[in-house]
């Protein structure tokens, strides 16, 4: 194995996950401090400047990044448990508990934290619940070979654009909930499971390469790079086709609208594009980790405590900015960046502290966070 493995943890995975968490914090700082959110509709985003677009688009990497890393870690964690003598049934049950915990974390802590715990809003699923459900579903195919998992992911991604054409009666709450949990996006869920589960499965497939089959960093970089370029080319071909796999039209190749197809739920183009982006970034992190490891060290701790980082920064922003109305959506990009720096200064020591607690603790719940 390469140098970037420490006590069974792959540093580039932790660092990339930390990077995604930090990007999410940046996006959330924009959500709380940036006045563009008075008019920015996530379902129909419009941008007044390049910087506002860049700020929003940076956050588009987060959901695919988290789902793929969750898929990778589920596969790796299951494999390690089996290798250490745990039964398959027990290893899967551990993952199912983690998935259930994530769903519960979403409908209790996360949903309420957005508004500073002013209201309890359990009737909504989001990215954390989507990860949780994907983790649970992944346990069903975790023993399948990478080729079978890849085939399942591709089949779901190819099928999803057709499922989006299903029309349903929005006055029928049951149907609406089912559709929004699995296929489309709306008030009950912005992250329908099917397309995001496919990305989690792809994460598990990539993990087979990154963490098992590819033995050196050089091999990871070359093969990861080829896969990323292949995904980008495929995504561009789908987009240029302007038909199947597209949802929003674009002005011209290279224009922001080319890259901004629908996110909620993602089009096939978006899934291919961000799958490529995640693989490209992980590859880049392997390269940077070899050339100049210190550059990425800032992401290591958030990457080792991703759920704590996510839940805690949302709670702080929700309580102090939203509920106590401290500069809530009063500024622009400058205010967002200042808020981001302050939040990083708060979150880094907090994450370090929690990581130490988690390492020492045998508490069931703390281990799950």
């Amino acid at each position, binding site marked *: 194995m390469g140098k970037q493995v420490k006590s069974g943890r792959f540093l580039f995975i932790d660092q990339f996950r930390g990077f995604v968490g930090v990007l999410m914090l940046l996006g959330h700082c924009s959500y709380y401090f940036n006045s563009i959110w008075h*008019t920015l509709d996530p379902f*129909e985003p419009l941008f*007044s400047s390049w910087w506002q677009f*860049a700020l929003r688009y940076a956050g588009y990497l987060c959901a695919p990044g988290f789902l793929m890393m969750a898929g990778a870690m589920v596969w790796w964690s299951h494999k390690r448990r089996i290798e250490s003598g745990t039964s398959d049934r027990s290893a899967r049950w551990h993952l199912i508990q983690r998935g259930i915990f994530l769903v519960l974390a979403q409908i209790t802590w996360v949903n309420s934290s957005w508004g500073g715990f002013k209201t309890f809003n359990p009737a909504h699923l989001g990215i954390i619940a989507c990860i949780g459900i994907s983790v649970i579903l992944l346990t069903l195919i975790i023993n399948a070979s990478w080729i079978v998992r890849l085939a399942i992911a591709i089949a779901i991604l190819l099928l999803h654009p057709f499922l989006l054409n299903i029309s349903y009666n929005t006055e029928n709450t049951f149907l609406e909930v089912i559709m929004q949990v699995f296929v489309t996006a709306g008030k009950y869920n912005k992250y329908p499971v099917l397309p995001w589960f496919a990305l989690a499965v792809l994460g598990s497939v990539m993990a087979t390469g990154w963490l098992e089959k590819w033995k050196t960093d050089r091999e990871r970089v070359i093969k990861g790079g080829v896969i990323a370029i292949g995904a980008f080319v495929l995504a561009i071909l789908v987009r240029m086709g302007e038909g199947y796999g597209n949802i929003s*039209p674009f002005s011209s190749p290279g224009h922001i*609208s080319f890259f901004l197809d629908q996110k909620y739920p993602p089009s096939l183009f978006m899934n291919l594009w961000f799958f490529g982006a995640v693989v490209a970034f992980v590859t880049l992190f392997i390269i940077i980790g070899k050339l100049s490891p210190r550059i990425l060290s800032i992401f290591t701790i958030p990457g080792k405590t991703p759920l704590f980082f996510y839940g805690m920064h949302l709670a702080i922003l929700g309580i102090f900015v939203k509920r106590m109305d401290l500069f809530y959506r009063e500024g622009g990009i400058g205010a967002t960046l200042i808020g981001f720096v302050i939040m990083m200064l708060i979150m880094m020591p907090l994450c370090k502290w929690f990581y130490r607690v988690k390492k020492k603790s045998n508490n069931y719940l703390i281990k799950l966070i």
Partner: protein
Amino acid sequence: MKNSRNISFAVIVVLIITTLNSCMSGSDDFSNASVSLHGTYSEDPENDTMFRIMDNTGITAQLDWASEEVKEVELWHIDWLDEDGELVYRKRLNIHSTDSAKEIKSYISTEPSTRMPGVYTVEFYYFREKVATKQFTLEPAFSLEQHQDELQTDIILYRGTSRKTGKRVGEGTEFTLRKKRKVRSLITIKNSLNGINDELLFKVKWIDPQGKTCYHKDFVHPVTELEIILKSYISIEPGSREPGDYRVEVYLFGVMIGEQGFVVNP
């Protein structure tokens, strides 16, 4: 070695930013695009940045621009924002190359029940990128109480004008149904309005014995005009009108500033 790595890293970052920046600038040229605003009654094309809240009115914003290349679909969004930058209304337009009407326009109501006075902005987005914007002021609804002493309305009703003398004939408030007969109104308004900066929008309504508007006519006059004359008429031919009590009403910015009743006999 370390320096060269840092320089390479910086070069990559600059390249990424430059590429993304060129993406944002897009390939379409909007330097000749212009936004025009039209109020329901506005007739002055030069003054399209000031409107007034009043009943049954609204504003249409239109972008005058033509794409150099024909696209199968053009994606447009038109946002209307209030003084606090809050979204008032968003319109999405998917204009197809086969569409017969390709106007890029949107309308909002400016009725007192839906709109507050203030500075508003209309923004045009082409494929999610802002390409044109225009601000306008929405003045408060006209209040007659505030301007009671600054307006004097005089309504004269008559049948017609003598061809020989040029004088009005048949002045009064009683008229008779007859072929080719008309009731004409001459409305004279002495104007010394203060604090009004936009053009004056008048409406003359003719009300029939059932209380319905049988005819109305709109007038636009500059606020600088000290004496404003409004002329309007209705036919009182048998068959087109019934006998009974009629009324002529004069409105400024949707608020009645004068009325005069009259009788049409069989």
